[in-house]
């Protein structure tokens, strides 16, 4: 194993609190990879047997829509983890992933890691314990995106008009400080 790889795992937040032996075990499943800008290195529906610790660059998660451009629904950048579809069966990617910039990352072979977690439940527990908050934060972020917080609110009425002609019937809108 390359020593540099183990160092990456030593300082990455996703491995915080894990002992050196566990990190060493996980590092055995990893390798350095590079993806050039524009490369689609994950495709929706493909088997999800890897995840990435991005060291440099940015990746875009895309949903392809027939008849129009793909929609970018999230990005992942430096020091972030990309991919958790490998955690749960049937281990399929749900999105395409494209390199927006050149990406240098550590890819972790999930088949290898799942086998090590199964062989040693303590490793599995430590890993899942650290990975679960990541999943929860992604879920929270997705919920916030669903709320569409920047859209125009529909409930608040505008103040009554003091003069002039009555307002045209229209959906109530706010007239708050902007």
């Amino acid at each position, binding site marked *: 194993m390359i020593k540099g790889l183990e160092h990456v795992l030593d300082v990455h937040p996703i491995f915080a609190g894990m002992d050196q032996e566990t990190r060493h075990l996980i590092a055995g499943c990893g390798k350095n990879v590079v993806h050039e800008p524009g490369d689609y290195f994950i495709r929706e529906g493909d088997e999800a047997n890897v995840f990435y610790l991005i060291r440099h660059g*940015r990746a*875009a*998660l*895309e949903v392809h829509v027939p008849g129009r*451009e*793909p*929609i*970018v*629904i*999230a*990005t992942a*950048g430096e*020091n*972030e983890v990309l991919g958790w579809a490998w955690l749960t069966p049937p281990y399929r990617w749900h999105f395409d992933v*494209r390199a*927006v*910039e050149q990406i240098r990352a550590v890819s972790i072979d999930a088949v290898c890691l799942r086998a090590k977690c199964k062989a040693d439940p303590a490793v599995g527990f430590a890993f899942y314990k650290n990975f679960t908050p990541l999943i929860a*934060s992604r879920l929270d*972020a997705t919920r*916030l*995106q669903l*709320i*569409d*917080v*920047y*859209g*125009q*609110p529909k409930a*608040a*009425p*505008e*103040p009554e*008009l*003091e*003069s*002039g*002609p009555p*307002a*045209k019937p*229209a959906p109530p*809108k*706010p*007239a*708050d*400080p*902007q």
Partner: protein
Amino acid sequence: MTYVKDGASLERSKTDDPMVPDLYEVKSLLRELDDTFTLTVSLPGQMEQFRFSPGQFNMLYKFGVGEVPISISGDPGATGELVHTIRNVGPVTDAMSYLRPGDMIGVRGPYGSSWPVEAAVGKDVVIVAGGIGLAPLRPAILHCLNHRDQYGDLVLYYGARSPSEMLYEREIERWRRRGLHVEETVDHAEPSWTGHVGVVTHLIDRGDFHPDKTLAFVCGPEIMMRYAVQALTDSKVPDTQIYVSMERNMKCALGFCGRCQYGPVFICRDGPVFPYQKIAPYMKTREI
């Protein structure tokens, strides 16, 4: 013009009725986005006396339609004109979107509290803006950039719905060149967008600033502010160092009518900029 401005306070001559607006002339109207425009007005010969602090607002009166409170979004260091960036969300702002140079509107103000740019001297300033919320923060950004050597790191985290709905795009590039670190994010994008996609709070989570010596200014939809404040406190920024700008429907802007009452405070008189700690309990209270 009879305003004598001293900090956030405002005095008018005794003969003036504070509910009577001054007549301002429209100098220009710039389309920023499909539903957002920037209105520049002036009171010829008297603008030199008009001073405002970043974060304050004016009451703008479209005669025959109505009056609305709008934050001032111009440069507090510049005199000669008043700048407001306005989102078209109702009959009054819709009527204003048709104004042309030479038209007249009524202006009362400036009103309200301001971003604590003086208290931030010597500190890092983290500005978190969502959507149209960048407009009330623009004077604070310009003030900090005008006095760049007085501040530590200046950071702007700006979130919008999509790249085509981001305000002041060209100006943001100029701000970058003047020493503002800008991170932008959108809720969704097309492939040509090379920035972040995700919620603005995520930028705070991975931000690189010194929480102990940071003052944070937050403005945007209230729900976004709640989550942004949470992300800031999770990043160890003390809640005593976080300021938010609130909005509610207003009528008099003088603290008389009670229309904008928010818990025990009036947004127009005690706000719109509040230390988060002061209003934290009410931001968590339903039906306020």
